């Protein structure tokens, strides 16, 4: 923060006058705070920032940001935001969505925004439950989950949001969680710096309908041994003194091993800039089967930036085609357009 030019705004400038209406104790508060604290550091202006959301608890987010914002339609935020971002590449466009909004009703829009690489920063609040409709299972709920709509337990295999984003070859994919403001801010900062679609899964606690869903991993006591912090260019290690690490077995599967047993050289180095998303996909799958089966059988999962590759963003390419067309054909002339299919004179 030594660069004074950056600090044009304060957190207050990014905070709207609307009363925040999430349940007390909801993880969403922490995320909102992280975003509002980060914004002044990014050196951007509230008037050039747009938050677009769908429907759900998380989708109330735009109302609390003193920026331009639209609380849209269930699932459609990526589509609406695509319209904003393609029309106006000069804007910073953020999408706030949840597991039901983005992965159930809006699954199609999400994957297409990602494959097009629209310049959006997408924050997916994953609480593994439908909060706003009072507690039905969501597309990320674990198998067997008992909710109002699954009294005998869910039989739907859950989505792994990161694997889905990587499957769509999203150019920036990361995971963070609502209890670590510093990590959130770091992750959002990297996502914002990335031009194109940035997809961030935020593990978020819904203390009313799915309390403690991620405690086994993100709970203060568990973090050290359960969270694998990814850092580009560094061996993937975690646990007390980095005793554990990730290796790729001969079968191509990633495994967690004791570093002491296998030697530091065998530990996989994280390469977020690798163009081929398959290694990032494998990382996203680490622990996924365990977390999918039950809320109490978690094994360590990675956090941080999984993938961050350079690929032209959609809005810029649209703009480039407009410029190219103008150069080739000259700026639009309505009279000429009307004559373009051939004309004849009647006298």
């Amino acid at each position, binding site marked *: 923060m030594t660069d004074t030019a950056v600090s044009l705004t304060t957190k207050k400038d990014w905070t709207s006058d609307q009363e925040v209406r999430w349940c007390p104790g909801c993880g969403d508060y922490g995320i909102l705070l992280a975003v509002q604290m980060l914004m002044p550091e990014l050196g951007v202006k509230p008037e050039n920032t747009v938050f677009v959301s769908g429907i759900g608890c998380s989708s109330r987010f735009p109302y609390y940001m003193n920026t331009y914002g639209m609380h849209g339609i269930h699932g459609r935020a990526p589509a609406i935001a695509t319209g904003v971002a*393609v*029309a106006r590449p000069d804007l910073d466009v953020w999408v706030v969505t949840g597991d039901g909004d983005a992965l159930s009703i809006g699954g199609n829009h999400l994957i297409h925004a990602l494959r097009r690489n629209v310049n959006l920063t997408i924050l997916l609040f994953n609480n593994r439950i439908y909060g706003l409709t009072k507690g039905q299972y969501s597309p990320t709920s674990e198998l067997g989950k008992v909710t109002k709509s699954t009294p005998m337990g869910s039989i739907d295999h859950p989505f792994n949001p990161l694997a889905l984003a990587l499957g769509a070859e999203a150019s920036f994919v990361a995971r963070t969680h609502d209890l670590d403001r510093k990590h959130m801010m770091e992750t959002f900062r990297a996502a914002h710096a990335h031009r194109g679609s940035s997809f961030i899964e935020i593990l978020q606690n819904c203390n009313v309908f799915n309390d403690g869903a991620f405690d086994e991993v993100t709970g203060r006591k568990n973090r050290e041994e359960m969270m694998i912090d990814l850092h580009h260019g560094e061996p993937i290690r975690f646990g007390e003194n980095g005793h554990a690490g990730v290796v790729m077995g001969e079968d191509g599967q990633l495994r967690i091993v004791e570093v002491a047993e296998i030697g530091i050289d065998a530990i996989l180095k994280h390469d977020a800039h690798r163009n081929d998303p398959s290694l990032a996909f494998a990382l996203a799958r680490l622990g996924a089967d365990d977390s999918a089966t039950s809320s109490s059988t978690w094994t360590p999962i990675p956090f941080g930036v999984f993938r961050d590759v350079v690929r032209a963003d959609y809005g810029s390419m649209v703009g480039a085609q407009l410029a190219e*067309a103008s150069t080739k054909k000259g700026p639009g002339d*309505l009279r000429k357009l009307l004559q373009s299919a051939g004309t004849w004179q009647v006298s």
Partner: protein
Amino acid sequence: MTDTVERKSAPETISRVVVRFAGDSGDGMQLTGDRFTTASAMFGNDLSTLPDFPAEIRAPAGTVNGVSSFQVHISDHDITTPGDASSVLVAMNPAALMADIGRLEQGGLLIVNRDSFVERDLLKVGYESNPLDDGSLANYRVVEVPMTSLTIEATASLGVKPRTAERSKNFFALGMISWLFSRPRESTLDWIKSRFTDELVRNANTAAFNAGFHFGETTELFDHPYQVEPAHMPPGEYTNITGNTALAWGLVAAGQLAKLPVFLGSYPITPASDILHELSKSKNFGVRTVQAEDEIAAAGMALGAAFAGHLGVTATSGPGLALKSETLSLAVSLELPMLLIDIQRGGPSTGLPTKTEAADLNIAMFGRHAEAPLPIVAAYGPSHCFHAAIEAARIALKYRTPVILLSDGYIANGSEPWLLPDVDSLPDISVNFQTEFNHVTADGTDVYWPYLRDPETLARPWAIPGTPGLMHRVGGLEKQDGTGDIDYTPANHEKMVLLRAAKIAGIASDIPLAEIVGDADADVCILGWGSTWAAIDAAVQRTRRRGHKIAWIHLVHLSPLPLNLGELLRTFKKVIVPELNLGQLCRIVRAEYLVDAQVVSKVQGLPFTSIELEDALGAALSVFDENKSEIEPKTINGVA
């Protein structure tokens, strides 16, 4: 031979002709018809076309389902319809004959491709005997031409393989018809040159076209050629235009007139895709097009672009309109300008994707949850689509509302000569974005209230991202009048519902009053909307020429309706409403004005013919006739 040619060199002048080209979907009939149309347009005829093709891209060859036709009506005077029955039918195979012989008038000229009337092709469509030989075509003037073999012969020297050469037979037909109606050859030859990049194909088509032309000239199968003189049309510069192209150009124009970039979000759907194609070519106008992942996304993108300050547009057909319904509701609630273009087709569901119908008025009018009124504009002809697009944009921008613009497959694909408008005379529809605070709070703070309305139009201000100080949030939750903050209180909700309705209703004073064409003192008024215009026009003219009085009102604005409509309709003893549906506008005017309007309905995937409407008018008039006939006011399909 010499004197034969001489005899033939004097064409007989006729005032109008309807030619129908019919063949397999793969035979290039649309191209042939389109080319004949352009040549006639450039020659100066007035014209109207009706392309009629199957939904399947390549339906099984030689079957009736696979027949693709193109009907064109050319004339030396002002016409509006593609003609009821055709006077010339070109049938490339037995299937085409079977499908379209019913549309050839008695005594009409039937030109068939003799080569295709072989047992296999005949059996495929169920002809037990060859209609060319069994006398069943005795009521027509039949000309049999071995088009396939003549084409192969004509192209043999080019080194084209017979199977490839066969594909040029539509150009043989085009050449023959071009001779028969004395069309200048040059423009078509030039067009072939520029259209076909493959040299062999280009040469084959040229050879086939010339061969067809000479064939007409030198054989004795035709008595003589015909000539349809140029129509007396108002002077000026003309082009031949389809409804979809006119609509796309209207959107480009609307962007220019509004000084806003155009953004089209669209998902491919018949018969609307040409709007996406055409606008994708207009990038030098700053037009952005996105082929969205689905209909919902297409609408969402258009709305997002509108929020960002563009003229947001989405184009679709019935099934897509259904999917976009929720986005329209949000746009109603956000009070943002947005255009939805619906090129109607036969339904429900996938229905008749390539055939026309105008049965989406109900969904356009009522197809949203809750109270969500919006303006509806309907284009009535191919070239009118241009002006309708500008008008729809004007309303959307001025009143900050989504607008539905209705067209249909008939005018979307049909074409007509269009006197190019003077670009400088088009209306200014520019908007002012809000750039300053518009309210002072009790404590003296300057603020921006996104829902503080213009007292006259009731439109809210439009402040776009990038404007310092005016940051605000909009959303689907009910908003407090003025501030735009979330507000669930009972009185506020009712106020907002009423305000949104009043805003749309108020547009009625900003659109032209309904006008009567014909006789204001008639007993019978015909009320139309959309593409029925052409058939009504012809039917009204003919009925009036026969000495009857008829009044005609044709609506462009369907929501809100013109202020004087009820008053006008009540002055007539009888109101009939021809519609390509079961009476959707009819029900609306009955409900709105308590007039005893009667529908004349047709839902066959085809436009009305003028004869059908003339009959309907005759039946309506007969009630008031001295020698009152027994005919009941009738409907085309028997549904009252």
